[in-house]
């Protein structure tokens, strides 16, 4: 594989007098000291790494670690203070304004944390944006935007406005906008962080399968280690503007380079820290109180389940209906399942409950555990297999 992006000795300092900060950095001052003395904020500090063609490189760090600054230095949305960024051997840091515009148009697609869709344009027009400013002919760009929207599963939504879409769908538009220009490189800045956990995991899966087809070079920023481990071919861990470790997910889990990384990784393999949220799946089929017992039975049969969760249309959780009680109700000729829903003695869990508190519940009951949010809405379910799978996936280093 060839090297797509190479970053050498990159510094980014915010403020009017970066030279003062650079001097202090050389003398070994810390970020905080520099800010106190010179009012210059250090974003990135001597960063060196490369991205190979066709890989997903995840840059992972907590907020304030400089990861968003770093990704913006790659296409010079943030002007690097010092150092070099090369893409395909071209020194991006040396391009003049016009060349840079051209480079951004052709090489990079950018996906933003808060979607950054243009609210006055339709989904189609948003997707066309990159092609439009390149001056691509309208018929061709409409075609390419349509293809990109179909790739992210939004065929048929072309004429909607972004405000009418859910968060997950808006980010699909964001992704389609990036794919439409057919760039070599996708820069994704916390692209899934603003989404609900379930939708977020769905998007991660889709990104992985999409990447199998499109084979882009992707730089993906996240603060979530689970996400980094899941989608990254390689991971760079950042802290205080510096790279603390670089390697494959396996490397990082098995050989944490510093105490900092170790602490991060420690969290991953403990059932105490894994929460119900991390292992829950969506309840594919549920019954509603207006359903009759036969409808509920059929839903169970189709899914091969012996019980089904019942909720209101607005998502409020009502209880569990077993096949036996539904059958009983049907034999008695009841029209509604309301009477036979079991809502007493039914264990429910909160998304933030740690896994180890789920074990006793799962051992005692044969049905999945409903995960309810603070408003008693059904967010998902936890099945026994998923808990063990979740632990096994991450427990290999325990």
């Amino acid at each position, binding site marked *: 594989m060839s090297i797509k992006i190479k970053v050498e000795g990159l510094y980014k300092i915010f403020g009017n007098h970066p030279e003062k900060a650079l001097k202090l950095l050389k003398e070994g001052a810390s970020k905080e000291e520099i800010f106190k003395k010179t009012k210059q904020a250090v974003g990135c500090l001597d960063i060196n790494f490369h991205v190979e063609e066709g890989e997903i490189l995840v840059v992972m760090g907590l907020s304030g670690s400089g990861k968003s600054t770093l990704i913006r230095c790659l*296409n010079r*949305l943030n002007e690097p203070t010092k150092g070099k960024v090369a893409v395909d051997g071209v020194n991006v840091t040396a391009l003049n304004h016009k060349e*840079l*515009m*051209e*480079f*951004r*148009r*052709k090489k*990079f697609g*950018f996906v*933003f944390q*808060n979607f*950054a*869709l*243009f*609210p*006055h344009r339709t989904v189609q027009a948003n997707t066309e*944006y*990159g092609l*439009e*400013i*390149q001056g691509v002919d309208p018929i061709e760009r409409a075609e390419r935007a349509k293809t990109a929207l179909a790739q992210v599963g939004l065929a048929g939504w072309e004429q909607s406005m972004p405000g009418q879409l859910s968060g997950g769908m808006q980010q699909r538009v964001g992704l389609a*906008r990036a794919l439409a*220009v057919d760039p070599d490189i996708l*820069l994704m800045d916390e692209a899934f962080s603003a989404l609900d956990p379930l939708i977020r995991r769905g998007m991660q899966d889709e990104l992985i399968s999409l990447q199998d087809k499109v084979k882009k070079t992707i730089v993906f920023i996240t603060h979530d280690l689970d996400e980094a481990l899941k989608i990254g071919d390689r991971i760079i861990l950042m802290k205080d503007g510096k790279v603390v470790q670089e390697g494959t997910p396996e490397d990082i889990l098995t050989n944490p380079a510093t105490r900092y990384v170790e602490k991060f990784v420690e969290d991953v393999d403990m059932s105490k820290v894994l929460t119900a949220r991390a292992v829950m799946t969506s309840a594919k089929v549920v019954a509603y109180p207006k359903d009759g017992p036969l409808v509920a039975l059929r839903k169970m049969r189709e899914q091969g389940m012996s019980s089904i969760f019942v909720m209101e249309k607005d998502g409020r959780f009502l209880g569990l209906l077993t096949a036996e009680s539904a059958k009983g109700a049907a034999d008695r000729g009841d029209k509604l399942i309301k009477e036979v829903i079991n809502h007493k003695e039914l264990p429910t869990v909160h998304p933030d409950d740690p896994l180890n508190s789920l074990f006793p519940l799962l051992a005692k009951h044969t049905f999945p555990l409903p995960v309810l949010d603070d408003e008693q809405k059904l967010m998902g379910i936890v099945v026994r297999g998923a808990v063990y799978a979740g632990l096994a996936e991450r427990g290999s280093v325990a």
Partner: protein
Amino acid sequence: MEWIPKIPLADWIESAIDWASTNFAPLTKAISAFAETGINGLVTGMEWLPPWLLIAVFAAIAWRLAGVKLAIGTAIGLLFLWNLGLWNSTLETLALVLFSTMVAVAIGLPLGILAALSETCYRIITPILDFMQTMPAFVYLIPAIPFFGLGPVSAMVSTVIFAVPPAIRLTCLGIRQVPKDLIEAADAYGSTWSQKLFKLQLPLATPTIMAGINQTIMLSLSMVVIAAMIGAGGLGGDVWKAIQRLKPGMGFEAGLGVVILAMILDRITQKIGRGQVK
């Protein structure tokens, strides 16, 4: 304070105006000619149509832009003015307001864009606007006369000066309010500054800009009435005559005319502004 001689500020200003009015004569004459043609053209054009037809046209415009209710209101209000015998005065005032607004927008929009895009321009323009808006409106009437003489052109010039600040300010504000992340997105895809301006900033700023134009129209109307003192004519002229002859009834009628015109213009432009948001 007697031990410091008075600073002859007034003398300085006057000699500056004298100097400018002689040296810029070709320019002021050109402006005069342009404005006079524009205003007279508008007035003659509107007076050429029979009042009932013009009222129907106005009502239709109101209907198209703002709905049935406003169309009916417009028709009733204008019929009332026609009935009071204020028809020609109304047209003169309306022509002056529309022409002044057009000039104010033609000046204000580019300046507002400039102030939004360049920090230096913003720092220069803002204090000038502050100054213009705190200066009493009457003061603008005086220097207009040596440059343009008594009459509608002087009235238009002072009206434009008085009415242009909101157009500049709100254009600038509207553009600056465009969320930073959208600007960043446009930048990330390699937009030039003009692509950003026309594809993103101006469309998103339109409701705010329309609010600015609405204010410009309202200020124009109020200034056109004041400018009757330097020969603007129209409804303001009627009010001014009523004051001089101590005829409260006549003054009230003309004043009511101003109110009706103000309401029609305000409602229509407000609706245009909101229609853009969606």
